[in-house]
């Protein structure tokens, strides 16, 4: 399943770092943090999607405290 969210991320480099970290989460097929559009795209296994999304946001926040996702 692939879903797109509005997100807030403050700088281009942080977006890149958050993206790299989220991609490493188990069950994530692909992830994009688009700084210019302020969009977060997550592609992950259907069954676990919500749990993976929570984890992704948590991981993102750890790297970049200002990272937030609108759901």
């Amino acid at each position, binding site marked *: 399943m692939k879903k797109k969210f509005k997100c807030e991320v*403050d*700088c*281009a*480099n*942080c977006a*890149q*770092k958050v993206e790299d970290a989220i991609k490493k989460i188990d069950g994530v097929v692909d992830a*994009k943090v*688009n*700084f*210019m*559009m*302020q*969009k977060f*795209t997550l592609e992950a296994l259907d069954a676990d999607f919500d749990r993976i999304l929570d984890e992704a946001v948590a991981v993102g926040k*750890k*790297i*970049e*405290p*200002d990272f937030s996702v609108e759901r």
Partner: protein
Amino acid sequence: MTEKQKKNLIRILAALVLFAAVAVIEKAGVIPEKYEILFLFLFLIPYLVSGYDVVRKAVLGVINRQMLDEAFLMVVASIGAFASRQYAEAAAVMIFYQIGEWFQSYAVGRSRKSISDLMDIVPEYANLELEDGTVETIDPDDVEPGNILVIKPGEKIPVDGLVISGESLVNTAALTGEPVPRTVRPGEQIISGCINGEGLLRIQATKMFEDSTVAKILELVETASEKKSKTENFITRFARYYTPAVVAAAVILFAVPSIITGNWHEWLYRACTFLVISCPCALVISVPLAFFGGIGAASKNGVLVKGSNYFEVLSMLDTVVSDKTGTMTEGNFKVSEILTAEGVSRRQLLETAAAAEGMSTHPIANSIREQLTLEFPEDAGKEAGVTETENISGYGLLAVVDGKKVLIGNRKLMERYGVETMAGHDPAATEVYVAREDAGAGSHAADENGAFRFFGTILIRDSVKPEAKNAIRDMKAEGVGRVVMLTGDRKETAAAVAEELGVDKVFGELLPSDKVLKVEELLARLTGKQKLAFIGDGINDAPVLSRADVGIAMGSMGSDAAIEAADVVIMDDDLGRIPAVIRIAKRTVGIAKQNIVFALAVKAAILILGALGIANMWAAVFADVGVAVLCILNSMRLLAVKKTIG
């Protein structure tokens, strides 16, 4: 300005005032030197007012073991400055850094907004007509195909559909860049995202919102900046090593000379300037922002570029290969001449031809039917006599009309069946030969030589697009070396059209599969960084579009196949947009390179000067945020480009 930006601006201004007050006290010398330490606390006030969130982020960074983030580096640098007793400077650096960050966020916000303004095509609602005739306003997402929608004057078309009643002028400018509104009448397709003019329209939805043109385009533009260009990948990789390297250099710069000279205050200060410069944001932001601007500038011109990487390809084009029919020419076929064989009347020839093509929707078939209706209105509709059609790809058709076999197609088809033909004299026209099973031949089977009787030749002409010649000339002015045209038409026709257009080379009589081979051949001829583009109408040429370095689809508004297969989509039929997009691509790539060179050069210069003790921390902050702001402003020049057409 967003709320956050307003709040930060107030903080910065407050910090500046406090800073000035403390600086005046310091300069006035009212506090004796032995109490100098007091200034550490005084300067901490403006420092924290402007930078408490940076400090907070740095602490969080330490807790989360993200040591090399920007906030952490800034805080370490300013603590270093405090430690080397440069109190005023430590506070000033934080304020200055925040000013830079503020400008950066403001500038990015502005360019983000100018892109979303361009993309202001999303319909907010749809007026659904219920069975009892009442109208209900619903979300475009809830429209089902088959629903009847009412579109009032000035409203956006919510989903793709078919006009049922009403007539109006619709403005497609947001989608195509084409300023002249288009007339729509009942029975015509209408595309979502267009703005209705003065008339009231009733349309039947043919697609869901998410499959409609407007949703597809938005998706494309949003994801375009995710397909990274080579330059972007380079800079991302570079940034990954840059920060650790500069931080390591800072540590060495502090440790080694301090031990040797013992003057650790001085070297700590110099090392701190390094830490400020080590932030990679200016670099990381400079390139994608340029491409983002390029995507915006292109969409303003009615061109969708599906990824940043295609700008690089477009800026290095050497060969442009184009399809002929529908791309270089109007694709509007008209019968220009009719040559009948002896003993065959004009009417008989047209009737037979129209009947044989009866099941075909090919533009040539349409033009023959149109001609028949024009000359012999009472015969219109006679094509019903066709009972069987066999398509002989690359040759024509073998049809059965009123029980008799009819051949209709090119000269090769006639040669294949050994039919003697009569050629026309117009090289630019397509010749359609017609032959019918000869009743007189009686016992002969129709597929043997001589069993078909030649009926005549119909010459059909397609006119060249008026802007095609100039577009080719402009492409060459933009550095395209060769323009090649491919067509299934016979060589004479192809050559005549090529001559008229000024293309360098033309290959005729190609089967669809030959086109891929030709493009591969042309690709093999390219040297070094030269690239090849293919322009097609996206209907039959998906394989070629994807084979080329960059596939450009023309006039494909509403054609899903083309939007899918192509890398660059020209929303209307205007060939003139191709040289325009090449120009935009070159500017985009140019600006991205300027940004990289500028950011790296300034950082390198300040690093060297900082190590030598010439550049102070102010200069370092400029190298970090000031450079980023200048790169952003440079990128925004792309959006300022006026529409180049229309």
